[in-house]
């Protein structure tokens, strides 16, 4: 960790926040000044471990000891008689109670295979098939809006080709790089060690010592509890929290300025929890807590603009309904989308619940999708930013004319 500073200083390209330099005119004509931020969780968020269907009779059977419940040591936070929120997300829970958060469950993009890259491609491009376009739906939505004027022209220098796909396209993009990135995640480390073990044992053993320290970090201190070990154990989770919060604060700072960009996107990696998922204490709990911290940082940083804000948290697909053989979950289908922000008519769960009975699972393994994520995004784009219907079905989400925007999310 001595080298932390040096690592952070290795700035090579562009980073996490992308935003537009134009104000949406139609919404402003109504006296609103809407903000919209998309947070993409890459790696496939386990929606069932984030918002657990505690009222479903099959829930505990599927997840066993890993099932979130509303009692016990790590009790989930109830949001209605059926769903409960992961205990790592008290801020989201508070916002939900204050009608400033909305949960969409059993939601999915039109993608039905199980490749991350292709899934992310569909999620961010807005097309029904991967590899269809090099532009993202958020950008095309913006490009279709009549602009009231350019804001913050001084930041145009940061325009870069490396924005997340969802933001790429004809509308001009500002890019901002967070001053520091977290070190490689334990997940990346363990994937690499696994690769080395099968191909190059010498490289594997060279990396393993450090990995052993990191494993303590995520699993909670076991064995060596000397001061030095404790110090090492704290840092990775803290680095993730700091990175999420810092990115969110910067996004809020830019977007809350009178002349700041109104629409943006952030991407957070690390959600591919195949082994030792740790929904209540462990990797997923750390990530969800970091996400909850980011939401809090957005609320604080937006200040007065919070009342005009919608933040959408989306992911490429969900994870298997059952726990797998390594205390994790594999690639699935439906998941949750989280909406937060002062502009929402929140405190509601949108879920046409498919049930978790064997016969109700997709392919006998995944939560079945009953809501199209495009309907949700279209609802926000239409009612919050005033993107016109004909654009939504054609340019923004091509081939989605039959899917109506979900009404009543904002207002």
């Amino acid at each position, binding site marked *: 960790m001595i*080298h932390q500073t*040096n*690592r952070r*200083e*290795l*700035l*090579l*390209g*562009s*980073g996490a926040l992308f935003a537009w330099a134009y104000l949406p005119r139609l919404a402003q004509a109504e006296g609103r000044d809407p903000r919209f931020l998309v947070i993409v969780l*890459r*790696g*496939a968020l386990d929606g069932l471990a984030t918002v657990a269907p505690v009222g479903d009779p099959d829930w505990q059977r599927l997840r066993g000891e890993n099932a979130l419940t509303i009692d016990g040591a790590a009790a989930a936070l109830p949001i209605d008689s059926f769903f409960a929120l992961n205990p790592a997300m008290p801020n989201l829970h508070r916002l939900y109670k204050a009608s400033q958060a909305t949960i969409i469950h059993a939601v999915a993009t039109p993608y039905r295979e199980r*490749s*991350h*890259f292709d899934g*992310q491609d569909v999620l961010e491009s807005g097309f029904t098939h991967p590899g269809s376009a090099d532009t993202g739906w958020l950008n095309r939505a913006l490009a279709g809006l009549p602009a009231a004027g350019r804001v913050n022209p001084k930041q145009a220098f940061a325009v870069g*080709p*490396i*924005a*997340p*796909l969802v933001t790429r396209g004809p509308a001009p993009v500002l890019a901002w*790089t967070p001053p520091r*990135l977290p*070190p*490689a*995640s334990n*997940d*990346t*480390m363990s*994937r*690499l060690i*696994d*690769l*080395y073990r*099968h*191909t*190059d044992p*010498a*490289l594997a053993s*060279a*990396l393993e010592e*450090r990995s052993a320290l990191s494993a303590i970090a995520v699993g909670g201190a076991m064995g060596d509890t000397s001061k030095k070990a404790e110090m090492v154990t704290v840092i990775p989770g803290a680095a993730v929290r700091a990175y999420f919060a810092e990115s969110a604060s910067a996004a809020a700072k830019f977007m809350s300025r009178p002349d700041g960009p109104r629409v943006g996107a952030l*991407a957070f*990696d*690390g*959600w*591919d929890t195949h082994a030792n998922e740790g929904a209540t204490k462990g990797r997923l709990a750390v990530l969800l807590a970091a996400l909850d911290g980011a939401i809090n940082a957005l609320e604080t940083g937006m200040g007065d603009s919070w009342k005009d804000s919608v933040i959408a948290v989306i992911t490429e697909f969900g994870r298997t309904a059952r726990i797998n053989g390594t205390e994790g979950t594999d690639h699935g289908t439906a998941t949750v989308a989280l909406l937060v922000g002062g502009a929402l008519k929140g405190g509601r769960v949108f879920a046409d619940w498919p049930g978790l009975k064997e016969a109700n699972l997709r392919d006998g393994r995944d939560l079945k999708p009953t809501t199209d994520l495009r309907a949700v995004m279209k609802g926000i784009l239409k009612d919050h930013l005033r993107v016109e219907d004909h654009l939504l079905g054609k340019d923004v989400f091509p081939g989605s004319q039959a899917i109506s925007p979900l009404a009543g999310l904002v207002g």
Partner: protein
Amino acid sequence: MGLKMARDTRVQNVVALHRFGLPPKLGSTDSIGDTRSALSAELDKPDAAQIKNNDLLSSGEAARAAFDFRQERKAARLAVRAQDEAEKQQAKEAGSSEDKPSAQRNNAAKPNPGPGLPQQIYLEESKARLETALAADTGFVERLVWFWSNHFCISADKGGVRPLCGAYEREAIRPHVTGKFSDMLLAVESHPAMLLYLDNARSIGPNSFAGLRRDKGLNENLAREILELHTLGVRTGYSQDDVTNFAKVITGWSIVPPRQSPERGGEFTFNPRMHEPGTHRVIGYDYEDRGFEQGRAILLTLARSPATANHIALKLASHFVADDPPRSLVTRLSARFLDTKGDLKEVSKALITAPEAWDANPTKLRRPSDWIISALRVCGIKPPDVRPILQAQNLLGEPLWRVPAPNGFSDNSAAWMDGLAQRLDIANQMSRRVGDSLDPVVIAQNIFGALLSNETKEALGRAESRSQALALLLMSPEFQRR
């Protein structure tokens, strides 16, 4: 059988490209074909190793600019001190016991001077070197430049050397990478950067004009390292007397003091007033005193020696092929070196055509700087600022032109194993910043072709994001080893 042969040739071509060159740049569409011809063609290009950049200073210009810069800073410091003294005196005379305001003013007024001129020159040169490597075709010639630069290494941390590092490489190494070893040897050992680094600039013959007048004398550093590291190799039969006598012969190989000459300051000079007179015996031969020619004659003898040929052959083979290379390969290269009187283009061709160099499995770990540059090439990153790259090299233990000792950075893979975890962090940062704009699976197929293992391919395909896949690619055994 025929099919297997064909596949083996394809794999061999990929292995050879990575072994001798650098991975293909992002967007290079040619599939890896006849690597031998491509490598050989790069050697045959005229001025293959030269950097074309008119903005870079010669070593003389750099030394004079650094000297002027130091003088100006010194003058500015003296002026500030004089002013302080005057103010203190005034305050005393005015009877005021408060000298705080003056101190505060000085603290507030002290601007951050930024990197000094020597560092600025160092950064400019680093950038030019990086850009050359990123633009290189197969990268074989750059790899040879790095090899020779490490063989004849210097350190920016030695007094006066920092502004000269880049010029040294451009003036003494690059022109001869596809030329004669003896020319490179002469250029190196008479270059101001080397004369400063190994102390010969101030080595004085005890019986020279200067030696008799002053109580200063011989410094054996350069003479010893020429024999031990640059030519014959350690324990090849030379004695302490040979070292001492050789050191005497090259007394007077020095530098024009910048304060003496605004035109030629910082450049090489043979100073007869420092030169030890007389005939000296070095490794079995007597060398008459013919001034500079006396030392030159010894260097030419050393360049022709079978021990030198063997030393260079072993270093080349262990740098490019294996930590412990096949004896037959070393013999082959050594013979070529002697047969061609040290023609480095021919020796390099012998290296890339040797069957041993083609058959060996990729076992060598890429050295850190090589790995960083390779990563930048495949990701298509052209860093606008060279400093983060230099910091990454520092972090991985191979700071540019800053060797810890005159034997250079290790060519043994084991020496670099410990840095693997740091490499992962750097790979992670690079990948996060390139974001999801690249397709790591396609890149892997382009740069490794038939060499790409199923395990690596699977790991990339299963990664949770493109950026994670890219980090895994940069860390994969295929990318680490050559």
